[in-house]
């Protein structure tokens, strides 16, 4: 559209006007047809073949031939050139003419953008000017301005389409408000950054006064804020030396402030006409004063350093009394008053705040009272009211116990008396999830027991316990055995506990090591949650043998009892670790190499063969077998190299290279029994330990079972690692006589027991046996410790320097069905509080009639009956589960065990084919005895000889000797000693 600016306004013309004809121009004659010829670039005529049949360049020089002539060229396969054959472009099919000036694809250098000197965009220019100031070389953008493209960007195009005009701001059209109002508003709100008042605004103010109300205006254009990063190392707000100022020599008296943003040059850039006194143009010292210059300036201008700052910051007060040691009035002045120079230094983009920020009042800390001590003492308070299931008697006991623990200050009253629960209720907070006290987690009978313990310990504060329940508990205490919940009962209990519990809560996974088992367990739990009564039966794998199922059944029930939701509610208080730390176990070779000493001896004696030969199962890599043209000897095994097993990282047995029985026992043996307890010892080893527990720990590698037995040999059923007894001595200089007496009594008791169950008694290896603690009630700490992991016991075993007497003072509190009395209680009085031999009972556990001679540990502490519950599980689940316990189980197990032990020994006899070996073993033992003698210097010689003799005897006919015999002998020794 073009508007005609001519005089006649009546016509509106569209389109481009033709050139006006000139009068004197002669009329052009049309070119005759024959003259309308086309020549190519070489001057040859070109025939027109037709607009759609090739134009001027059909064929090859107007023929249908080709460069090669009529005959087609021989076929050249392009197969080899496939790789470098590029895709055809349209240019490949074009003629040369097409690339010419008038062709369809002219090839020549053209400008890609049209350039023109369009209307200048003032806002952009301003922005550019600002940018130029900020640039390293001031005036840098001059070149850009010269060759600015006429084509505007697509954004600008779009805005134009939407009705935007250059010079306007972007945004909805607004009604202009009276200026005053704006000012008022602006006056109040000036907290943050504000754009500097644009100069152009002032000029428009005049129009505003007569702006009609019904007219809306486009918003004002604003100068874009320059966000160019600072590249130099100058400080914030640095502007550089303005060439206009410095070079032109204007205002010689003026001080040049490099940090002043609102300098004159700047304001000039923003289009303020008022300041521009002098016109542009080349001027200066070199050019003299031109004719157009009005004023006669100092041509020979001299620059002086006084115009420049020599120090950073503003000028200091003149008298030189400044600095932080200056008199008060100077420093104060600086704070309060805003001097003019400061005002002038406002950075671009900032304005002065109208109201000063609120001063923060900092109060002095409260004065501490004179008796203040910066240590907080926690008072153990049990919130009795919150113990829901606790009997009043226990509550009373707890209350009194609190008084016992801490000296209560009678004066202290009020809020210090409150505990966290009370405060919580006062504050109206929600109660914490989960049990509020440890007492909640205990079972009622355990609570009773605790209560009884308390009552017995402080009889003065004892309150009469009248409930018949506690009476029962007392009886229990005497008996030392928790009432045996039958399997069915237990299941019911479990069902009640799990029913309807939240499935989403994370429960402990006890069978995580075997995924299939864990899956079955999970299934079982799910069914429990749904309230299935026969959940157990359904979740078990029907393909398993009856024996396995029964075993698993027990395990599941026990696990579900132990990890029932109540304990998981405790876990709601804690966050479980995201990453499982399985760092406490290391991979060790399953088959440890045997002891070197034996072999060295064998080599010395030139007895090569079985003694020096060891054979391991070794898994070659599959690929290696393939390369060697050998079938895989262990198809399907994912193991490469020697098979590894996971062991506890800190187990002593990793360092004491003690053999675990490599060979699995007889076929009927259940797979679970592969994981044996270390109590499950071979005969030889036990002898080793019998001599001295201390030396036993050291000589364990030597006592390692005869490993030279070929794999073909039927394995002796179970050869555990070692017997490790854990005994504690609280007093190092313990009178052995005391012990002996105690031991005597225990032995007596033991004898009684023995009378009772001659047959059912497990063939008790004293050495792997059972060290029942005597004074457990007094030392609850020791009782708990004795529940620790076996490994720890093993470790500690090394430390405790036991005298041999200690070993023999051990009671075997194997609990049987018939015998109700446990030895532990009675002996406590004898060995007074000083002696605490916390000891461990081993009771053999077998769940089936098949020979599982895995003996396990349990302790016969009456105090910790809950733990006692499942010593069996210690085997299956690892140390996390407390010991098990239906006495019925134990008794049965013991019986079976004794049988199996006998069988085992008989078998073993057969198996020892080589006499040599046996002899050698004996040699070993004798040697050990010698060593032992050396080590145990404290030991009285007589005892030593006694015991060693005995041991030797044992060695000789270890297989034949019955356990009863052993015990008797031991007793003899005891009696010798006590004498």
């Amino acid at each position, binding site marked *: 559209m073009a508007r005609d600016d001519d005089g006649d306004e009546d016509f509106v013309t569209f389109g481009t006007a033709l050139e006006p004809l000139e009068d004197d121009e002669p009329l052009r004659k049309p070119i005759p047809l024959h003259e309308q010829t086309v020549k190519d670039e070489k001057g040859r005529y070109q025939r027109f073949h037709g607009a759609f049949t090739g134009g001027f360049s059909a064929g090859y020089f107007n023929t249908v031939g080709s460069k090669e002539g009529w005959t087609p060229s021989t076929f050249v396969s392009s197969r080899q050139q496939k790789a470098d054959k590029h895709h055809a472009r349209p240019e490949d099919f074009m003629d040369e003419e097409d690339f010419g000036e008038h062709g369809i694809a002219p090839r020549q250098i053209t400008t890609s953008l049209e350039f023109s000197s369009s209307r200048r965009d003032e806002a952009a220019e301003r922005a550019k000017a600002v940018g130029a100031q900020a640039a390293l070389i001031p005036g840098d953008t001059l070149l850009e301005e010269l060759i600015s493209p006429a084509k505007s960007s697509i954004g600008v195009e779009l805005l134009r389409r939407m009705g935007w005009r250059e010079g306007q701001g972007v945004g909805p059209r607004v009604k202009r408000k009276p200026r005053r109002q704006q000012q008022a508003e602006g006056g109040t709100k000036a907290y943050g950054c504000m754009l500097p008042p644009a100069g152009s605004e002032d000029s428009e103010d005049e129009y505003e006064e007569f702006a009609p109300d019904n007219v809306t205006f486009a918003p004002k254009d604003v100068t874009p804020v320059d966000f160019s990063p600072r590249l130099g190392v100058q400080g914030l707000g640095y502007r550089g030396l303005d060439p206009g100022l410095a070079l032109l020599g204007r205002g010689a008296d003026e001080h040049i402030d490099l940090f002043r943003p609102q300098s004159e040059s700047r304001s000039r850039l923003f289009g303020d006409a008022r300041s521009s006194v002098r016109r542009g143009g080349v001027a200066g010292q070199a050019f003299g004063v031109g004719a157009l210059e009005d004023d006669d300036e100092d041509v020979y201008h001299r620059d002086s350093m006084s115009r420049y700052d020599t120090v950073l910051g503003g000028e200091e007060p003149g008298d030189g009394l400044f600095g932080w040691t200056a008199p008060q009035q100077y420093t104060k002045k600086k704070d309060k008053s805003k001097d003019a120079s400061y005002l002038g230094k406002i950075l671009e983009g900032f304005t002065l705040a109208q109201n000063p920020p609120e001063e923060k009042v900092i109060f002095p800390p409260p004065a501490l009272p004179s008796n203040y001590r910066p240590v907080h003492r926690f008072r153990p308070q049990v919130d009795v009211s919150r113990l829901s299931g606790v009997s009043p008697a226990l509550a009373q006991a707890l209350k009194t116990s609190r008084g016992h623990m801490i000296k209560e200050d009678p004066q202290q009253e009020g809020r210090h008396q409150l505990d966290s629960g009370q405060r919580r209720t006062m504050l109206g907070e929600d109660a914490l999830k989960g049990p509020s006290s440890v007492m909640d987690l205990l079972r009622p009978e355990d609570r009773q027991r605790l209560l009884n313990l308390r009552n017995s310990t402080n009889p003065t504060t004892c309150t009469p316990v009248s409930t018949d329940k506690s009476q029962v508990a007392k009886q229990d205490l005497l008996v030392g055995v928790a009432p045996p919940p039958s399997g069915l009962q237990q299941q019911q209990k479990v069902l009640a506990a799990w029913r309807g519990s939240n499935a989403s809560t994370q429960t402990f996974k006890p069978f995580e090591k075997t995924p299939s088992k864990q899956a079955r367990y999970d299934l079982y739990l799910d069914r429990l949650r749904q309230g299935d009564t026969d959940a157990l039966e359904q979740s078990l794998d029907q393909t398993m043998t009856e024996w396995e199922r029964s075993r698993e059944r027990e395990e599941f029930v026990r696990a579900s009892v132990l990890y029932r939701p109540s304990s998981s509610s405790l876990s709601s208080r804690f966050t479980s670790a995201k990453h499982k730390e399985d760092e406490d176990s290391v991979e060790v070779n399953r088959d440890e*190499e045997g002891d*070197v000493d034996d*072999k*060295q001896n*064998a*080599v*010395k004696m*030139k007895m*090569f*063969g*079985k003694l*020096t*030969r*060891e*054979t*391991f*199962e*070794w*898994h*070659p*890599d599959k*690929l*290696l*077998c393939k*390369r*060697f*043209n*050998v*079938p*895989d*000897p*262990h198809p399907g095994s994912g193991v*490469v*190299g*020697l098979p590894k097993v996971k062991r506890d990282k800190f187990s002593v047995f990793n360092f004491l290279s003690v053999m675990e029985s490599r060979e699995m026992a007889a076929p009927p043996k259940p797979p679970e029994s592969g994981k044996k307890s270390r109590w499950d010892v071979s005969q030889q080893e036990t002898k080793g330990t019998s001599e001295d527990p201390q030396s036993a720990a050291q000589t364990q590698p030597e006592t390692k079972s005869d490993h030279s037995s070929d794999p073909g040999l039927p394995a002796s059923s179970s050869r555990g690692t070692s017997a490790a007894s854990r005994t504690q001595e609280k007093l190092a200089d313990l009178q052995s006589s005391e012990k002996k007496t105690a031991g005597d009594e225990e032995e007596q008791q033991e004898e009684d027991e023995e009378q009772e169950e001659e047959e059912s008694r497990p063939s008790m290896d004293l050495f792997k046996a059972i060290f029942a603690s005597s004074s457990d009630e007094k030392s609850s700490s020791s009782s708990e410790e004795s529940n620790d992991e076996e490994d720890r016991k093993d470790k500690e075993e090394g430390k405790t320097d036991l005298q041999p007497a200690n070993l023999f003072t051990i009671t075997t509190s194997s609990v049987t069905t018939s015998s109700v009395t446990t030895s532990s209680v009675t002996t406590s009085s004898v060995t007074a509080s000083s002696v605490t031999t916390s000891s461990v009972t081993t009771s053999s556990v077998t769940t089936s009639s098949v020979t599982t001679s895995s003996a396990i540990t349990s302790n016969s502490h009456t105090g910790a009956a809950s733990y006692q519950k499942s010593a069996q599980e210690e085997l299956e689940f690892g140390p996390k589960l407390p010991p098990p316990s239906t006495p019925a189980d134990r008794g049965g197990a013991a019986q079976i065990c004794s049988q199996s032990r006998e069988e085992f020994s008989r078998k073993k006899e057969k198996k020892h084919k080589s006499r040599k070996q046996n002899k050698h073993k004996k040699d070993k033992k004798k040697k050990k005895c010698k060593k032992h003698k050396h080590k145990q210097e404290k030991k009285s010689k007589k005892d030593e000889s006694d015991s060693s003799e005995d041991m030797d005897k044992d060695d000789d006919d270890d297989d034949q000797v019955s356990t009863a015999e052993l015990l008797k002998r031991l007793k003899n020794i005891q009696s010798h000693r006590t004498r």
Partner: protein
Amino acid sequence: MAFPQPKPQAPQLPQHLLRTIDCQQGAVRAVRFNADGNYVLSCGSDKSLKLWSVSQGTFLKTYSGHGYEVLDADGSYDNSQICSCSSDKSVILWDVATGQVTRKLRGHAGKVNCVQFNEEATVILSGSIDGTVRCWDTRSRRFEPIQVLDEARDSISSLKVAQHELLTGSVDGRVRRYDLRMGQLHVDFVNSPITCVCFSQDGQCTLSSSLDSTVRLLDKSTGEMLGEFTGHKMKGYKLDCCLSSKDTHVLSCSEDGFVYCWDLVEVCSPLCFKVLNTRLINTFPGEIQLCGGVANANS
């Protein structure tokens, strides 16, 4: 047939020195025959491996590429490849004809003492001072070993492969026999650092020399000692031992510069013959050929 077999002649001790080759590569760390005994590989301490013709005694080729002295080498059954190991912790597989490095196998943590092809040259087994035996695949392009046998507790000093068995001698005083077919590892305790192990030609026995100046012949299956050969001196150097081609004699180097030779059955006084500064020994079926490497004093 009706004709009785001619009575086997009593094996003769080597009578004369066939040939002496001056390798000119510093101390010779190992000399190995190839599969048919016509060529000899010598491992020099000047980082080079040289191939010699036995019959003419002529030098054929040098294989250079190791970064430190070459400690052991072995030729493949078809004479197409050579593997060698070096103190630079690497094992190199050479192409015999071109002399180019086919593969350089790195992975050992210390110098590699011994190297062997398996029967079909599909696997290279290398024993190192780091106590491991690494099985390298020559067929694939993997640069990791197929398997690492790290049962030894000390440096592997010697290594032999026979069919499906791998015999290793270690400084921890144990001779280990890996039976791939059975999937078993047999460990024989000798209580003295093993310097050299080898199978007997019939594959029933193992011979091991150790630093207690003893060569022991052990029954392979049971580990019992069949013979013990002493008289020579082997206290501190890794010297080789071997059985003769028909298992009639046991040969061992000695630190006194002689090669000691025992009758296998009658273990009486050793016969010895002197080879100048013998360090290394190797026999080959058919003719007893002894390779003596001239080693420098402090090797």
